[in-house]
């Protein structure tokens, strides 16, 4: 008998992959609900798999799965340690909670005859993100990265029904995303040229002896620039605000919570595991490039957010700032800083998931979201706005929320390095978050509803329940911090340690 539990590492990728073409076949019944339900089942299956994998890794250590029974480094290996198990949980978890939310908003925002194709593309995007996270083969990362990117361009462009700017946003993302991915491949080419291997473990083994090789240096530069484009690290973030703004609500939730996180994971993997500290340019990049860029990102993103009148765009700019916090944690390059970075990958997924979900509820009722159209909605949609405010508190970093935990660890990490001048900057960054959250609260609670808008009702329970589950997670993991901090700490130790 086949031991199916042994095959979970491949099933978590292969099942969403195969369910995408099956989903197309629903066009024959023109059955939109079935396509949605199918996507829901697959998402939950992936979520269960990732919980199993995380548990297994916590108890038994690293899992290595060989595709086609070819031994690595010759064959493709799926290698799961604590870090990717954690990121897998984030991606599939957000998908599992976003899809139940998605049915009504997709019905409203996407043309009926395109919905089945929409879910198909969504499944491909999920496959890509899970695949990037789980694989232990460098070229496989590129392939899955392109699967997820190409499908997300399509998904963003599907927002065209509400605003034609979705097209130009998707186009710009396509150009920059492809340039980023191609840079990544050029870098891989250089590494392959020198080492003759693509398996990540093997690559890092062989690279330790090649610290002075010029081709390796060039490869490193290409890979880091390419990944920074995908991460949307300032100043390579220009594709991000428009994409998140004009995408359909479901896609804003999913991409904001997962896509950049997965790229950050790849960045972490390459910085610390493939290259590592045997290269003297790694600390150099971290301190003199990533740290200033992270600080600029925090300020640029937060100040940019303050000046926005479009609500979704405001939160997209805030995402740029939050990526700055994560990269700052990476740039600290001590255990606590990396713990903060890994924690914030998880926490920011929860925060931005909840916020964009609340924005999705508002779009469902109001359509276009600006600080003008949401005036007075605080009284008309009390539950949605309560959730938005609570998620906003988490974004600012009020104690008992997840946002506080990651910022606290970030501050501890900075203190350990003795970089005191940065601490006020973090505090100012949080204050800027207060300013842009206040803009929304002010508009929603302290202004009269505009005359030309008909009164709106609260959104149905089907939308409120997933929203409040995510908000609940924001507080649950802000109070019950043991499990996430334990995972993040161990992940940081793995990243910094010499052991594979």
């Amino acid at each position, binding site marked *: 008998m086949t031991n199916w539990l042994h095959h979970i590492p491949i099933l978590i990728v292969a099942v969403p992959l195969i369910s995408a073409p099956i989903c197309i076949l629903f066009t024959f019944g023109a059955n939109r609900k079935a396509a949605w339900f199918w996507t829901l089942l697959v998402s939950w299956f992936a979520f269960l798999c990732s919980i199993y994998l995380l548990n297994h890794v916590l108890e038994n250590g690293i899992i290595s799965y060989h595709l086609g029974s070819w031994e690595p480094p010759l064959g493709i290996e799926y290698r799961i340690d604590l870090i990717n198990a954690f990121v897998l949980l984030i991606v599939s978890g957000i998908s599992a909670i976003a899809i139940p939310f998605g049915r009504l908003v997709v019905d409203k925002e996407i043309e009926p005859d395109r919905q089945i194709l929409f879910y198909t593309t969504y499944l491909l995007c999920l496959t890509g993100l899970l695949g990037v996270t789980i694989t232990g083969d460098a070229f496989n990362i590129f392939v899955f990265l392109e699967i997820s990117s*190409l499908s997300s361009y399509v998904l963003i462009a599907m927002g065209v029904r509400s605003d034609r700017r979705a097209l130009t946003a998707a186009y710009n993302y*396509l150009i920059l995303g*492809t340039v980023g991915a*191609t840079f990544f491949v050029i870098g891989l080419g250089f590494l392959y040229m020198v080492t003759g291997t693509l398996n990540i473990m093997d690559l890092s083994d062989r690279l330790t002896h090649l610290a002075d090789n010029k081709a390796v240096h060039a490869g490193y530069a290409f890979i880091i620039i390419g990944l920074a484009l995908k991460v949307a690290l300032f100043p390579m973030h220009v594709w991000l605000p428009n994409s998140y703004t004009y995408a359909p609500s479901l896609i804003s939730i999913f991409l904001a919570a997962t896509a950049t996180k997965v790229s950050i994971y790849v960045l972490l993997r390459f910085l610390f595991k493939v290259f590592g500290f045997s290269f003297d340019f790694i600390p150099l990049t971290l301190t003199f490039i990533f740290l200033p860029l992270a600080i600029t990102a925090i300020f640029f993103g937060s100040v940019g957010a303050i000046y926005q009148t479009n609500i979704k765009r405001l939160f997209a700019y805030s995402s740029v700032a939050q990526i700055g916090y994560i990269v700052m944690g990476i740039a600290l390059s001590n255990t606590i800083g990396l713990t903060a970075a890994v924690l914030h990958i998880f926490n920011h997924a929860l925060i931005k998931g909840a916020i964009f979900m609340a924005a999705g509820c508002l779009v469902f009722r109001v359509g276009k979201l600006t600080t003008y159209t949401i005036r007075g909605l605080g009284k008309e949609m009390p539950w949605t706005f309560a959730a938005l405010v609570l998620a906003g508190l988490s974004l600012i970093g009020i104690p008992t929320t997840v946002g506080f935990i990651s910022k606290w660890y970030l501050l501890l990490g900075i203190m350990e390095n003795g970089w005191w001048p940065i601490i006020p900057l973090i505090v100012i960054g949080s204050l800027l978050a207060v300013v842009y959250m206040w803009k929304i609260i002010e508009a929603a609670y302290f202004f009269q509803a505009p005359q030309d808008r008909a009164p709106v009702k609260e959104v149905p329970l089907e939308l409120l329940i997933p929203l409040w589950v995510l908000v609940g997670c924001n507080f649950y993991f802000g109070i019950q911090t043991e499990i996430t901090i334990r995972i993040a700490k161990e992940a940081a130790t793995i990243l910094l340690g010499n052991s594979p």
Partner: protein
Amino acid sequence: MLEAIFNHYNYWLIIFLMMTGLYIVVSRGNLIKKIVGLNIFQTSVFLLYITIGKVNDGTAPILTGKSEIFSNPLPHVLILTAIVVGISTTALGLALVVRIRESYGTIEEEDILVSEGHQTEMELNKIQP
């Protein structure tokens, strides 16, 4: 010196193509030209990989029974995948351009920005009545 340059002519070609492609992507305002630039840029990467795979005096990697020196087939396989990715990117990009032209009536970036700027101004006027 000169020998070092000419012996690596393939790399010079790749660098030339790479820079040409990237320059077109950055400098042209026509959306289709940008995609053409992107294509040239990607093609240079295909060439880079194929150059890596070449072994001097190597034949095509087909099993004939005799032991021969043959070129490394792996980069070719990798690049086959990258070509497929490139085709999908081009198809998707052109499809977006078609849709952009249908809704904006132009494929020049500047004209699109102008019509967008107009729209945002109208939005602003609506916000502050």
